[in-house]
């Protein structure tokens, strides 16, 4: 294991499963290199725990290049840690100082129950997409792609909304655990494109209904979600969704 010169103290949320109560435990992270990613630092800590006969800290991760949305740590009071526009897997230890104490918790939301330690269940997001986050087009029905012309500006806006990785940082950042940024990103992407027009009314009504049923809280336009979003999804999407919702409700 490569050695670095950073010595850190971790205060990590440990919880055996969703039914048992959790608590903070303290771990030493010695000899950490500033070039390590935050998750590689956890790898080092876990490897040492296992080698000394202790149980490692459970956490979610997969692609480690900031796109799959699986990693989900709440670091020093901020989802994905102190840097803007990055996920935990892309956060590097050079963003911390030798001697720091770092507090790491899971996403906190009634709609994201803890599975173990830092891993949570985000299947509520999948159910919201299943309620309307699609264009109803079966395979084989499509006409030539260039028959649908889309102004570049609209295509770019739709792309920016579609950049959401579904990590749930917006929910974790929100004092009400609102999922408005996530839901509005999908509603916006499809509302901006001609392909999404036929179902736009049902889509926004169904997705908002499902969001409420999952136990996410209300939006109070604080903007913490936008500030903490690793993909910088804009609050404008929430405004757009509110307009779509009002239009759909009154027509």
């Amino acid at each position: 294991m490569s050695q670095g010169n950073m010595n850190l103290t971790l205060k990590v949320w440990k919880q055996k499963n969703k039914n048992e109560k959790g608590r903070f435990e303290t771990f030493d992270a010695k000899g950490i290199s500033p070039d390590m990613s935050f998750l590689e630092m956890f790898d080092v800590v876990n490897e040492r725990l296992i080698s000394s006969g202790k149980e490692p800290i459970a956490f979610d991760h997969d692609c480690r290049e900031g796109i799959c949305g699986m990693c989900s740590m709440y670091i020093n009071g901020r989802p994905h840690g102190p840097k803007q526009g990055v996920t935990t897997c892309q956060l590097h230890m050079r963003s911390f100082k030798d001697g720091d104490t770092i507090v790491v918790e899971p996403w906190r939301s009634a709609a994201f129950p803890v599975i173990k330690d830092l891993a949570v269940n985000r299947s509520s997001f999948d159910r919201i997409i299943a309620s309307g986050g699609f264009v109803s087009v079966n395979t084989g029905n499509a006409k030539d792609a260039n028959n649908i012309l889309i102004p570049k500006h609209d295509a770019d806006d739709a792309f920016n909304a579609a950049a959401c990785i579904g990590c749930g940082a917006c929910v974790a950042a929100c004092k009400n655990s609102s999922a408005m940024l996530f839901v509005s990103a999908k509603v916006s992407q499809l509302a901006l494109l001609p392909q999404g027009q036929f179902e736009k009314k049902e889509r926004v009504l169904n997705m908002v209904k499902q969001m409420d049923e999952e136990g996410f809280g209300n939006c109070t336009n604080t903007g913490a979600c936008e500030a903490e979003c690793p993909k910088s999804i804009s609050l404008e999407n929430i405004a757009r969704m509110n307009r779509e919702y009002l239009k759909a409700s009154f027509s």
Partner: protein
Amino acid sequence: MASSSKLNAKIPEGTLEQKWTKYRSNVHLVNPANKRSLEIIVVGSGLAGSSAAASLAEMGYKVKVFCFQDSPRRAHSIAAQGGINAAKNYQNDGDSVYRLFYDTIKGGDYRAREANVHRLAEISGSIIDQCGAQGVPFAREYGGTLSNRSFGGTQVQRTFYAAGQTGQQLLLGAYSALQRQIGMGAVKLFARHEMMEVVKIDGKARGIIARDLITGKLERHFGHAVLLCTGGYGNVFYLSTNAMGCNVTAAWKAHKNGAFFGNPCYTQIHPTCIPVSGDHQSKLTLMSESLRNDGRIWTSKIQNDARKPNDIPDEERDYFLERRYPAFGNLVPRDVASRAAKERCDAGFGSGASKMAVYLDFAANTERYGKIETTKHNLHNPSKEEIIRLGKAVIKEKYGNLFDMYKQITGEDPYEVPMRIYPAVHYTMGGLWVDYNLMTTVPGLFALGEANFSDHGANRLGASALMQGLADGYFVIPYTIGDYLSEEIRTKTISTDNEAFLIAEAKVQDHIHKLMNIKGSKPVDHFHKRLGKIMWEKCGMARNKEGLNWAISEITSLRKEFWSDVCVPGEANEFNPELEKASRVADFLELGELMCIDALDRKESCGGHFREEYQTEEGEALRDDKNYAYVAAWEYKNESDFKLHKEELNYENIKIAQRSYK
């Protein structure tokens, strides 16, 4: 050479252009009422799995989808950056189905099946149409039409893209189609489930044993057919561009149950990745091939040059790809580019602390774009700073997220200094052997996407993985599965209390019990890293007989050590990521040996497989078409005992030739 009697590729009769059309008109169908009582298991939810599951459910089949991630949207297809190929010829630059077919066969170094590749090229356009209709936000021109760019190994612009996030947008398209079917009750989703075993009854695949990763409980699931869409096995190298969870387990269990493994040694080493920075490294990050559209690759002409890249004047730089391959330049295929970079670094021209890196430089094209912008905006006598500023804005629009990612990982700003890159394991062309129907040698067991061996020969061209994954899922399996299921309409749902299910479950239980009770001294990663090092050094970018023999004996003893000294903490009946890893690494420790055996058997160089003993005077791969124009399909007999079956490759439409990009 004749093909083994155990391998029937079932390639339809007729001319190349007519095979697929005729096949679709003649293939047996399953009527809608019967579809409703046929159950299909799909393992894996990437491009191939999600598109197959959604399409089959739309047709009326009952589908179950399994993925080990917490959501189907997280499958590693999401990380594909650059784009997806399609022979649309929107750019009016001479593209055609034939040309995409030809480029793919040639790019694969004449080791792929003609009929499969032609079908892929024929389907390519429909994929773009389907994704467009789903609302996938592809890049567009100001006139509203779709935009294209170039990728390696081709001379036309046929790559469709969504900035550097093409895989993400295509997967989210397939995922929303899948979620729509889940919402309608046509698909049942099992997230955080890992397939642990295939269940066979009377020689046919009839289901799987899956482990619920949250509770650790084993589950028995029946299906009239099982589709493995479980991706590649690049993580056998430990360090790769794959996600941490990517694994060979499903494919390997299938292999041990009778599915032959095709061309396991064909591995793609991608030329443009961020170099390794230390022993702590857990994965490597790709910098998309699309960057080679505008980035020039070079080293200093002086060995061990300690100067900073911006201090090395142009005449002292060796643009080695442009020098060696003037016709394709920086856009040669991946295997060629990787070997050329390795050759320069091995010869002492590399840069960075380890000297194992070459430069990827955007300065020249930043200036070129800046000048175009000044003309567009009618700016007269612009300053150099103004030109560079405008040029950087163009580069940012094309590759912004990649540049940000590079800066985040390395701490260096690629807008100011050239990127440093080095090849890394990226994709595996090998995989489960399948026939034209995508069925393995086990009836009822299919393999789609990267999990099969079929379309890329010995080297995959950039932007073709997304094409193949979606082709298999949206447009191939919906037809070809009918050929099998039309014979199964009389098979009633089999109870999962059937003896075959109980035996398979007990086997998995025993496997887990063994892993939990070794209680050794070393974590799983310790063994995985050691395996990766053996594979990278001896079965990586360059291979030779001596090294491969050494690797085989090392892997065998490492496997023994693993089974006596691995430490898996925690319990089996709970969320236990270390147990998941241990089970996957156990399979990698067997696969690694087969890869070396295959590499040893293939006494030629082709595509990603470079045997040092077989090269031209100029250091290019030297194929042996007389003796090795075959697919190596390996049958599992016993531990360390594999039997080779050969499928002869016949080229009736392409003149097989030494590959040249000069």
